[in-house]
Each structure stands twice: as C-alpha cells, then as structure tokens.
C-alpha cells in the first residue's frame, strides 16, 4: 500500500504531466488495487520475470485493447447513445465523427481507429464540393484530431482505391505535418494506381506517414472489412483485439539449456503456453467479469460485435533469441547476415505460429477461436532486446538482404509485423523507386511496409511517430503535449532510435511505473 501511495503521489505531483495525462495514469494505477486475474504459479513467475508481458494493461481490463468501430454503419444509422442522427453533409459528418471519437475507448483511453475515412466520408463528397473546400474542411478536422486526441496511436486507413478524399488527406498531411493521426494506405496490385502509392511516398517524405499494407494478403486473413490500427495492428472492422500479450523470445532462449532444435520442442512450447494462459485469463476477466461486450454502447448499437474480436499473441526479441541459440550450437552467424541463422529464425516463427494455431482461445471467433499472431514492435522499457522480428538497429544489412530476411515471416502474422527501412536523402528525388520497392515487397509476400527518411523531422519509435523537435523539448523541460512523446523519450533512451526527447502526444506502450 505504501508503494501504491508513493506512485499515486509522484503522479499527482509530477510537474511535467498535463492534467489529462495525470488523470489517465491515475486511472491505470487504480486497477492495480484490484487482484490480478488468477494465474498459475509458472505463469505468474514468467510474468514477474518479464519473459511474458501483459503490456501493462492493468489488473482488471474494462475495455478491449483495440476497438475498430464500424464507422460506415454508424454514419448510416446514427448513434442512439450519443443522440446523433445520421449526417447528411460533409460538415455534419465530420462533427458526428469528432463526437464519436471522444466516446470510443481503448487501452490508451484514445481511439486507436478513426475509420477508413475515404470510405466513411465518401457519401458526403459531392460534385459541387471543390478540392479547396474539401481540403479546408479536412484541415480543420485534422487540427481537431491532433489537439483533442493527442496520441500517436490514433490511426486511420485509406485505399486501396484512389479517391478525392485520399488525395486531399495526403495534401492536408503534407501541409500540417502533425504526428497525429497515424495513417495506413492499403495497396493492391490491381486496385491501387501507382500515382496514389507515389502520393503516399511523397507524404512519407514530409511526415513519415503513411504505413503501407498488402491489401490482398490482409483480405485473405481477415476479409474485406479489416484495418490497420494503432501501430501495425491489423484487425477486423466491427471487432478488434481484447488484449495483447507478448513473449520475449530472448528471455526464453536465456532459460534454455540445449540445442536450437530442442528449443523448438521444449522451451518454446512451454513459454507459448504460459503466454496463452495469460491471454486467456485477461480475456475472461474482460468478458466474464467486467462484461465489456454486454454493456458498452458500441456493442449495444451493433457497431462492434464480440464475434469479430480475438486477442493478439505477440513475440519479440527474435534476433537475440536466434543469435543466442546459434551460439549454443557453436555457430556464429548473425540474424540478417547468415543464411543458416535466417532459416532457423523462419522455422522458429513457423513453430510459434503452429503452436498458437493449436491453442483454442475463448471469445476469439474473429480468429477462428485462436489468437492472432503479432510481431510486437516494442515498448519504451525494452532494453537490449529488438522489436518483433526486426534486425537490431544499426546491424541492418543492405536493403535487398534486409527485405529477404524479413519477407518469409510476414505471412504468418495476421495481426501485423513491422520492419522499418531507412532511406537516405536521394530517395526524395525518385519517389518512383520507393513505389517499386513497396510493390516488390508485397510481390515477395510482405504484409507491412514502413520506411523513414534519415533526414526526416518525424521519427518512428516503435511504430508510432514523434517529431524530433518534440523530443528535444522533452529533453529540455520534461513536458509534452502528446502522451506518446513520453514513451518515445523512454524508447529513445533505451534504443538510441534517434537522440533523446519529451512530448504532448501519448502512447500506451509504456511502463506506467
């Protein structure tokens, strides 16, 4: 109790946190006064030792982690809970969405999904509306999003079809250069014209957004109604993820005595099951104890459906894991640089995928009764361990080798995988070259593609974006307007992803302590 009080006191007295940031962190802290969902002794120990991780979602989950409301349905039928009739023009639709966003929960307290806006708003973009009108309206809306939802995990989707809305959104993005909202462009070789991908690439040069996803691969896993939300989480629209748990493969490898082959049949299955146990306990707490899906207005009005939810089973630290296990076997190859090590990494991930596919999970109809596999992109406190299946920062091989190392993993991660490719300044003068690489990545079976310009003001931390200038301000003052900026500062200090920094934009992937 004394420690609890100390943490509460340090939050309320922290001069670098805004009122809202204190409020949200105190709420997260409060659930720690409740007992944790019941776990076996082995599972509890693995959690305490951080071999497995609950992403600090709290002791009593009372919202799904990631929620993807069906906004198209919402604007068609109106919202009873919020007393909003269906909008009939663009101005009303934008006001409608702004109100709705403020009432969509998530583990961050901010909505992680704002809709496939090109589709949601399409009925309201009439021929009499000029591009200038459209840009002006979206510009006001965009500023509202950044200031009222100051969290870099706030995310919207566009594509795969071209549209006036997608083009306008990219123009507004380039002119405003905000870190919120984050954006995904869905890319289909048959449906998405090069010129739209090119427009996306030019927008990355200015703002670090959008992220690109392989539309046909996503549709094969989730159906047409899917979206990428938060950072690199691909889930069903009208559904989402109850929770995200993750397994630190490096820590698992450190607890293994034996060959790399034996790891796949002994230590790995043991920790996969402990991770699954943690997921199941948290799902049951959310569904059976807190009754989230019976009571929340989004469920009551049919804008989410528990049958379109699953949970996310994350892994990270693959690079350190396979390097350690290869060393055990007397082989000194490095992940990303050595064929044998890379081939073993693929076998290991395939084994995880098979184990997760064999583990029934309650309330996970969205994933056919199983968790979605996810390559988890890190949180601010991770130190000495690399995100997901990435190659360690600074050890990346040449671009082709990098792509070849990553591509074989992507099809296994239905709920997303991220590899961030760094481009030098020459890329800016030849956006077509980036279009070729993105098209090629998807042709080679990659699911997600993100790139950064080395010179960019915007930096991807684990997956979300921060501005270097905001980080510099945190360094100087300790305060930030975006809640995710604080996370980025922690991640930067541990990962050396940029230089250090502070912020206004928030993110949930944070140790609350």
């Amino acid at each position, binding site marked *: 109790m004394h420690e609890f009080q100390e943490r509460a006191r340090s939050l309320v007295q922290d001069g670098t946190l805004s009122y809202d940031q204190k409020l949200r962190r105190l709420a997260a802290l409060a659930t720690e006064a409740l007992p944790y969902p019941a776990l076996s002794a082995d599972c509890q120990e693995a959690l305490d030792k951080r071999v497995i991780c609950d992403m600090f979602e709290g002791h009593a989950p009372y919202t799904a982690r990631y929620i993807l409301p069906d906004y198209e349905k919402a604007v068609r039928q109106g919202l009873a809970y919020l007393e909003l009739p269906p909008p009939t023009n663009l101005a009303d639709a934008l006001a409608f969405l702004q109100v709705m966003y403020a009432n969509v929960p998530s583990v961050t307290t901010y909505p992680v999904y704002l809709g496939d806006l090109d589709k949601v708003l399409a009925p309201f973009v009439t021929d009499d509306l000029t591009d200038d009108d459209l840009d002006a309206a979206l510009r006001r809306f965009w500023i509202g999003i950044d200031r009222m939802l100051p969290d870099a995990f706030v995310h919207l989707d566009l594509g795969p079809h071209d549209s006036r809305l997608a083009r306008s959104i990219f123009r507004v993005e380039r002119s405003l250069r905000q870190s919120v909202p984050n954006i995904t462009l869905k890319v289909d070789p048959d449906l998405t014209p090069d010129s739209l991908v090119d427009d996306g690439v030019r927008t990355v040069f200015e703002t670090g957004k959008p992220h690109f996803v392989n539309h046909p691969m996503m549709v094969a896993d989730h159906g047409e109604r899917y979206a990428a939300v938060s950072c690199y989480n691909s889930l069903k629209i009208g559904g989402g993820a109850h929770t995200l748990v993750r397994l630190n493969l490096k820590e698992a490898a450190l607890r293994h005595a034996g060959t790399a082959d034996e790891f796949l049949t002994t230590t790995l299955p043991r920790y996969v099951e402990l991770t699954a146990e943690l997921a199941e306990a948290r799902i049951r707490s959310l569904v059976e104890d807190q009754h989230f899906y019976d009571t929340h207005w989004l469920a009551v009005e049919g804008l989410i459906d528990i049958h379109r939810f699953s949970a996310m089973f994350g892994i990270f630290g693959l690079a350190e894991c396979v390097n350690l296990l290869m060393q055990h076997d007397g082989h000194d190859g490095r992940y990303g640089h050595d064929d044998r090590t890379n081939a073993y990494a693929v076998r290991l991930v395939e084994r995880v995928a098979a184990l997760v596919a064999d583990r029934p999970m309650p309330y996970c109809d969205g994933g056919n009764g199983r968790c979605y596999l996810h390559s988890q992109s890190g949180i601010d406190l991770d130190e000495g361990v690399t995100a997901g299946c990435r190659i360690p920062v600074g050890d990346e091989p*040449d*671009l*082709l080798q990098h*792509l070849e190392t990553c591509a074989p993993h992507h099809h296994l991660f239905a709920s997303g995988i991220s590899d961030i490719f760094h481009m030098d300044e*020459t*890329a800016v*003068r*030849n956006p*077509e*070259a*980036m*279009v*070729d*690489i993105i*098209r*090629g*990545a998807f*042709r*080679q079976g990659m699911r997600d593609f993100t790139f950064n310009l080395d010179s960019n003001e915007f930096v991807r931390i684990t997956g979300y974006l921060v501005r270097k200038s905001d980080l510099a301000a945190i360094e100087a003052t300790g305060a930030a307007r975006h809640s995710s900026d604080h996370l980025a500062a922690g991640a930067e200090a541990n990962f050396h992803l940029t230089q250090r920094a502070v912020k206004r934009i928030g993110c949930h992937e944070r140790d609350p302590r």
Partner: protein
Amino acid sequence: MSATLADAATGDVSAITGFVADTITFSNVDGPGNRFVVFLQGCNFDCVACHNPQTIPLAIGEHFRTSVADLLPRIRRAAPFLRGITVSGGEATLQPDFVHALFSAVQADPELARLDCFVDSNGTADDATWHRLAPVTHGTMIDLKCFDPDIHEQMTGQSNAPVLHSIELLHGMGLLYEVRLLILQGVNDDPALLRRTGEWLASVDPAMRVKMIAFRAHGARPHEPALVPPSHEALEAAAANLQVADLQLCLV
C-alpha cells in the same frame, strides 16, 4: 521510349562477356524507379570531374571479365523490387556487343522480361551503335558536359559534336529519357552559355527532361586549380538561366 523489341536476339547470348567494373543492386539515381546498375570498365573521355576515375582506363585486366550468365542471377535476385536495369560506366557503348547481349538476355528471361533496359552514356557512340542497341533499349540518359565546344574539350579532352548529334538522334528515335548537365562552378555555369544550352535543348525537345547535377568532390581526382562544388543557390541560379520553354529541370 517505345522501342519495339520484336527483333531482340533469341539465341543464347549468356556466354558473351564484357569488362564490368561493379554492379549496384538497388539504385534510385540511375534512371526511372529502382534499378540494378552495371558499371562497365573503360571510357573514351578523361573528364576532370569524373567521380569514378577508376573506371576510365581501357587497359583492363581479365579480372573484370564478366559474362551475361554471371550477371543474370544477381539481377533475378533483385528483380521483384526493380523497375529496370541500367548500364553505365565507364562508357557503356564502348562494349555494344555485351550491352546488346545483356539486354537481349534480360528480355528473353521470363522472370526479367518486365524490366526496362536503359543506357547511361557520354553520347559519343556513332549512329551504327545506337541503331544496333535500339531494338533492345528502352531509354538513354546522355551526359552533356558542356554546350560550348572549347570548354567541352577542356573538360573531357574530346569534341562535343558527337554528343550533340547523339542527343538529336536518340530524341528522333524516341529513346532519349534525359540529358544530364554536370555543373562545375566557374567552368560551365556562365549565364549566357547556360541560356544558349537551354535554347538548344528546347529546340530538340521543348519538354526535355534535364537533370542538373552539382559537381561533388567525392571520388574525383585532385585538380589544379581545385574544382568547386556549386552551392545549392548556385545550382538554382544555373537552373534559372537554363530554363527555356517547358524543359523539365531536376536539380541534384
């Protein structure tokens, strides 16, 4: 850039060899999109500002000898991510048989046939060489070191007459993708000269794509007096002087 490829060689050309200095798997500065680049050894110019002077000598060792068959697996590996391939140099057109064989082999390979084939050249090849390469070539990028013949000779040791002729010829054949001007401060950036250059280029093609490249000391040999890399402002001023008609200028 609508070369018909109907008469591309169909025989086995994979054993044909050339002198290859180096290859680059991904390049975004050697033509449209992302490209695999083959740098051929040997050049008939001796430019003061050359940033790859080691590729100039023609007296080449056997260790440079590379067959088409050696290159194809390297290109296949990168192919999913490529728009095309570019041969550069050195001076690629000094080895027309090899270039022809490489392009023919790429176009005959089911995995590679969608790639386009470009030549980056100093423009000194004769008409017969261009006509020989045309059926297997989709585009060319020609360096114009200087429009003024005397300055050109000082810079390269050669006349610019064949270069100007190649630019006209290739444009007429639909094979001119871009002309490149390397800007050396105080050497070829005189405003009146650039204006004449722009007028001549626009007389060939009013909408010509022209890449203006600022000289960079990196890689170049020492020179007396020292060559000066133009500032960004100087490059922009040079572009303003060059701009005529609808010339599409790109500054690098």
